[in-house]
Structure formats: structure tokens, C-alpha cells
């Protein structure tokens, strides 16, 4: 069986690109698109994959991460898929990639203007848990009527004493649209603000695309007396010694021994090499 370049046919890609252009023109606004069946189940990032397929050219260098790692099943499968259907070069190094598809993280290495980050999004609507009616959430966006989002943050503080939402932390894009940053840790939220790289978000099951164009303001919501804060650790990465990166606590043996290591595997190995040099 033969595929068109990057699997999707040219008409579908054109439709996706039109939707993406609209998304870039209205930062944070969810643009509906005709999501296609992909040879992967929903939840595997079919939204992100379609965005990537619409953008890839033969000269692109693709990196795929899942929870910060290049070597998880999900990341490996998506990378292999594009290598097969588009023949593009792939990399694990953030600095070498022109296009990075990601689930749950933004790389630690600063991104550049010539890079695009594509997020896989399970639920594009930040108000959904509070307001199940789609017509109503659309109206709330149209009127920028976002008091409801603060109800959720209020509930967090009332229950836990602080804003306990630690991932998929709601943001206001360009001072206008309330937006889900996808389930990245709130640690990564500051990287969204005025990023030089273009950020694109694809939700396959919900059939929505949205974008944060380069250098767009992205504000994490909070209260005056409970300001936005990112996660911090007492520990440093036990592999590379970094004190600035997002750490995962992992179990390393069958006796339950735990250690803290960078979630961004490329950043971690780069940092180790630097230390050795």
C-alpha cells in the first residue's frame, strides 16, 4: 500500500492548514476542523499527528516526546510512523528539531523562532468540567465571560489551601481567550509566554485546533492573594544534577527505592555530557 507524503491526502492537509492559519490569526481561539481517521486510536495524539502531517516538509527534522521522553512507546510509534510515511529525518535533540510533537511537556531547552511545537490535546475546552454544554461554553468564549474558571481555582484553594491544579493549568492567551495549555505541568506554563516558537494544539476526538503564535502573551490565571506558582523540588536530578528542570520521581528497583530525575531525557543527557566535558 502506498501513502501520500505524510499519510494525509493534499486536500485534507489544505483544510488543516486553513484551520491552522485561522487559529494563528485568533490566538487561543478553538477552530473546528474535519478530523480524519488516523491509523492510531484517539488518546494517542491523533489531533497532534494531523497537525504535524499538515506541516511536515521533506527537509523537516522531527522530534516526538511523551512526558518529556523520546523513548516511550507513544513517542517511538509516532516518530516511526512519520519516518515511514514522510521519510523525514528524526532526532532526539531539541536544538536539532524543526518540528516537535509533544504530549505533556515543553522541552527544557529554549525554543527558537524557526521551531514549531505541536501539542496533543485530549480536552481543548478549559471550562468543560464546569460547563458541560458546548453551546454555552462557546457563548462564554464569545463574550469573554470567564468568571467560571475562577470558580474552579476558588474550589482548589477552599479544598487544599492552595491552587492544587498542577497540570493543564488554565491560561489567558493574548489577553482574550481562555485556553487549555494541554496537560503539561504548570511548571511549563511560563515557557508559553512570549515564546519565540509557534505553538499549535490539536484535539482529534474533539475536532478542534488552536494556536499560540510567537511572542504572544500567555497569562496563568490566579488570585491576587494566591498568585501563580510553578512546582519546585528540594532535590536535584540524580543523573545530571540539574536544579532547574522538571523532575519525575521514579522507582528504580523492586524494593521501592525512588529517585528524582529530569523528565526531559534529551536535556538530562545533554547536561551530563556538559558536566563530563
Amino acid at each position, binding site marked *: 500500500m502506498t501513502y501520500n507524503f505524510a499519510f494525509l491526502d493534499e486536500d485534507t492537509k489544505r483544510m488543516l492548514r486553513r484551520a491552522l492559519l485561522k487559529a494563528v490569526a485568533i490566538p487561543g481561539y478553538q477552530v473546528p476542523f474535519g478530523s480524519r481517521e488516523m491509523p492510531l486510536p484517539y488518546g494517542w495524539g491523533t489531533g497532534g499527528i494531523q497537525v504535524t502531517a499538515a506541516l511536515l516538509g521533506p527537509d523537516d527534522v522531527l522530534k516526538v516526546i511523551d512526558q518529556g521522553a523520546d523513548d516511550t512507546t507513544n513517542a517511538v510509534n509516532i516518530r516511526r510512523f512519520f519516518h515511514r510515511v514522510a521519510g523525514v529525518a528524526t532526532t532526539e535533540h531539541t536544538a536539532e528539531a524543526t518540528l516537535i510533537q509533544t504530549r505533556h511537556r515543553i522541552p527544557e531547552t529554549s525554543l527558537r523562532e524557526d521551531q514549531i511545537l505541536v501539542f496533543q490535546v485530549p480536552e481543548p475546552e478549559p471550562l468543560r468540567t464546569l460547563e458541560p454544554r458546548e453551546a454555552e461554553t462557546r457563548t462564554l468564549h464569545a463574550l469573554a465571560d470567564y468568571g*467560571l474558571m*475562577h470558580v474552579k481555582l476558588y474550589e482548589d484553594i477552599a479544598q487544599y489551601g492552595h491552587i492544587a491544579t498542577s497540570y493543564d493549568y488554565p491560561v489567558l492567551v493574548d489577553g482574550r481567550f481562555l485556553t487549555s495549555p494541554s496537560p503539561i505541568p504548570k511548571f511549563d506554563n511560563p515557557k508559553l509566554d512570549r515564546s519565540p516558537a509557534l505553538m499549535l494544539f490539536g484535539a482529534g476526538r474533539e475536532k478542534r485546533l488552536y494556536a499560540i503564535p510567537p511572542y504572544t502573551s500567555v497569562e496563568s490565571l490566579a488570585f491576587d492573594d494566591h498568585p501563580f506558582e510553578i512546582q519546585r523540588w528540594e532535590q536535584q536530578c540524580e543523573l545530571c544534577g540539574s536544579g532547574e528542570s522538571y523532575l519525575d520521581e521514579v522507582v528504580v528497583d523492586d524494593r521501592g527505592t525512588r529517585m528524582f530525575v529530569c523528565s526531559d531525557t534529551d536535556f538530562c543527557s545533554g547536561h551530563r555530557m556538559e558536566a563530563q566535558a
Partner: protein
Amino acid sequence: MSALLQVRGLGRRYGQRIGCEDVSFDLHPGELLCIVGESGSGKSTLLNTVAAQQAPSSGSVRYRQRGGGWLELGALGEADRRRLAREEWGFVTQNPRDGLRLNVSAGANVAERLMALGMRNYSQLRGIARGWLERVEIDPARIDDAPTSFSGGMQQRLQIARTLVTQPRLVFMDEPTAGLDVSVQARILDLLRRLVNELGLAAVMVTHDLAVARLLAARTLVMQGGRVVETGLTDQILDDPQHPYTQLLVSSVLTT
């Protein structure tokens, strides 16, 4: 004193069926007006149409804004209508479950409208929410409890706090005490009477119960078959009803 609300020749049809027809009245600042009538007489239709929750089939509703200018509600876009509902009006539904957000705490229910108006200080929101729970006779210690753990009467009092917290200029209420036990009703009516006086609220309240009108409203409007058949001072209507239908309503209250 200039009116807050001017209703003129208002009608609302559901296909061929008449919901309400040719209703006119003025509401003044600080005034509580009751709309009474039996079930199906068009009270809710009138209330919802006046509150711009549904479009009129004929007639008009004008509202005098804070600045003094008149707003023609029929010409209002969705954004302006919602702004008005959020910033200047309140609506209390018969079933508190329709007016409350059941999946968040009592405190969040009270604070929601304040947050919608842009208040972003958590401790201030808590303070105001506690104060309002106290005002509607709910133990402030229950601020973090779910409204689903409250009795029907408490839920209704919570809805009242949630609606009044932003000190609206005009409140619409649709049978706020119907469906509650008589003793619970009495407590809520007392509470409403006190709050209406304290806050100087203007309100339109629908009820099928003339005793409620007697307790709360200086003026009452009696509806039958979608039309207003009698209107005037509540005491006068109750003591000396003119229209045969009102006479029937009054006598049925007196005999039960």
C-alpha cells in the same frame, strides 16, 4: 420618581397558544411587585419575558440603567443582555437546583457572581461569602460544603445569597417558596422581607399564593388566562377585590 422598568402591551405566544397578552405595568426603584394567579395563568411567561430570558411576541420592556438612560430590552444583543443579568439583575428560580451550581461548594456558589464581576482576592471573596451565608441564616462553617448536602430550604436560602451578593438593582423571583414545607416557607419569606428592606431592592415576584403577596408586596397584579385582570395595592385587592376571578381567588384563600 422615575420608573425602573416600563412594561407596555407585552405579549408572548407559544405558536397559537397565548402565554401572556397585553400586559402593562411600571416598577419603581425599591418596589416589590407580586404577580399572582393560578397555575397556567401566564405568570412565569410574563416574568421570563420581562427579564429578557425569552423574546416577546408583541409589546416592549424598557429598563432604566444605572446611568439613567433607558434600555429597550427587545433591541438588546446577547452580550448586553448577559451583562445586564450579571451586573444589574438577579434571578431566583423556584427549584434552587436550577439556580445553583451543584458541583461546587456553597462558598463558591455565593462568590461566583463576584468573580464574574472581576473580584480576584480570595480572602475577600471568602469574607463576603461567609457574611452572606450568615445573612441567609446558614452556618458559615458550612461554607465549603456541597449544596447537595443542604435541605431544600437551605438550598433556596443559598440561592438567594448567591443572587443578592452583588447587590443587584432588580431581582426576578419565580415562586421562590413553592414546593417547600409551610414552616420553611415562612422563614424564607421573613428573610426575603428583611433583605428587600435592607437592600432597598426592586423585585418582581411570581406566586400563586395571595398570602405571600400580602406579606411582601405593596402592589399586586392578578393574572388569568395570560391577561392582567386586576392590579393595585395588595391590601385593597385582598380586602375589596373587583374582578370576579380575584374575588374567587381571595375567597379560596380565606376558606383554606
